[in-house]
């Protein structure tokens, strides 16, 4: 039943210096569907692939707007993300109330990082089983942060987490140099292409299964879903909803 004696709780090290509970939590992130984030000089974009449990059900929400200036995309346990997002909403509101300023993204990221780390050091607690991409704009410009269940947080230029996200990261690494100078629309296209690269052979991006979140300098964070993203999908891929054949990439 147990892989070894050292994975019963998150406070015990294995003799190799690993904490298995934390590693298992990171596996939960890899089970979640893929999300991608990119920043340019002026914008931050999140793109997410939504999953539905069955044909008849609705799709699981992947992007959560937190404050007017930023939002998160999640991969992993959605219920853990809900807890974290509620905490982030509270902290964001508290910053506006006490300082009359939108909370800096580095600040909110380190606060959830601290919270997640605490869970890995107390007996009877468990790590969060969710990874987050935090994207938005604060007084210092657009930012993208990655959050992991271990409590590790990093600022990123571009990032992809979740199932098969290695393919998306490969796309992002190949086009890394273009992101900084990209326009809003170019950035969205890059995010969608990265997302598409991580899809299984028989899958397509559709208006049902795709979510976008965009924030920019002087532009509030907004989530785009459904019919709102039809045009982006159309212009990014030749046939986004075509039954047969792969959608081709369009040069920008």
């Amino acid at each position: 039943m147990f892989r070894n004696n050292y994975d019963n709780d998150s406070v015990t090290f294995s003799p190799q210096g690993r904490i298995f509970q934390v590693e298992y939590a990171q596996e939960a992130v890899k089970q979640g569907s893929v999300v991608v984030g990119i920043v340019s000089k002026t914008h931050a974009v999140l793109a997410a692939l939504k999953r539905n449990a069955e044909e008849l059900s609705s799709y699981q929400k992947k992007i959560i707007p937190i404050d007017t200036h930023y939002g998160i995309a999640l991969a992993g346990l959605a219920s853990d993300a809900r807890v974290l997002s509620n905490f982030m909403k509270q902290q964001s509101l508290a910053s506006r109330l006490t300082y009359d300023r939108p909370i800096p993204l580095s600040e909110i990221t380190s606060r959830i990082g601290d919270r997640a780390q605490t869970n890995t050091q107390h007996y009877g607690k468990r790590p969060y089983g969710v990874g987050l991409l935090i994207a938005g704009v604060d007084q210092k410009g657009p930012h993208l942060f990655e959050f992991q269940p271990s409590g590790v947080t990093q600022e990123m230029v571009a990032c992809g987490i979740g199932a098969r996200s290695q393919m998306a990261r490969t796309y992002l690494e190949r086009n890394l140099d273009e992101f900084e100078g990209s326009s809003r629309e170019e950035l969205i296209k890059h995010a969608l292409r990265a997302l598409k690269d991580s899809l299984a052979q028989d899958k397509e991006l559709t208006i049902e299964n795709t979510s976008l979140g965009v924030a920019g300098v002087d532009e509030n964070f907004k989530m785009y879903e459904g019919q709102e993203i039809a045009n982006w999908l159309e212009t990014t891929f030749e046939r986004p909803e075509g039954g047969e054949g792969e959608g081709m990439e369009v040069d920008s």
Partner: protein
Amino acid sequence: MNHLPQAWGRPRDDIYGAYDHSYLPQTHANTHPTTHTQSPVVTGTSVLGLKFKDGVVLAADNLASYGSLARFTDVKRLKPFNRKAVVGFGGDVSDMQYLDRLLNSLDVQENYSGAATTEEDDGEAPAATADGEGGEDKHKAILDAKNLHTYLSKVLYKRRSDFNPLWNAILVAGLTTPPPPAPSTSTSSPKDTTTSKPTGPAPSRKPIPYLAYADLLGTTYSSPTLATGFGAHLAVPIMRRAVPDEAAAAKLSREEAVEIVKKCMKVLFYRDARSMNEYSLCVIDGKGVDLQENIKLEGESWAFAEGIKGYGTQTV
């Protein structure tokens, strides 16, 4: 009810027998009720603030009074927070010192987290002082005067709600970046995806002067001319004569503003019995904070006093 505070709010011993303290927490049993400092002890008098075209002037004298005794004559009541904000304190001096420590720790916290600095310019680099006018604001991420005023007003209001007020009236002066003209959730709808061009770097908004008041009750207000304490009665009318509104403040030069404030400090020394002829004066503008802490009152003349009945020693 009797005169003993420890009996207040409790059943009378002569009717109900001795009060049983055993169920109370140890800290409350057989002790006096919790009391707080509900009045100031060593106090500073007025603080003056005046906006001008690209900054704010702040002034306060260097006296800390013990009642009517001029007890300490070297107390600096203008506290710079960072290059964008200065706080002037009136009222209790020990509470001022507490708030000063609080602001110092806030400043350390802000700088330590890295949220305050930008990559090109971390800290108070002299390069940034060169472009007072226009240009990219390299310190846009630090807590500005408006953020600081909001924070201090919450601290003051919290303490008064605990019946343990910080006995101060403060002015917060400095610069703030105005909010964007109109909140736009979607600058371009998905329809024009094909037509949009790359957007250039964000238009930087220029910081504007900011001046606001907060006091021990948590009351706040803002005006281009402000004063705490006695100055609210004596100096504000003089300042308002020169600067009746924001439009007038936007035309006022730095030299004119300093001139008006110095004149008000003189009037205050003449008519406020808790004032002193040595004061601090601070100018905050795009170039940073310019604080002078030992200015002597110039051109002092008491000749006018003779003609005013009740002003000095006179025989009627």
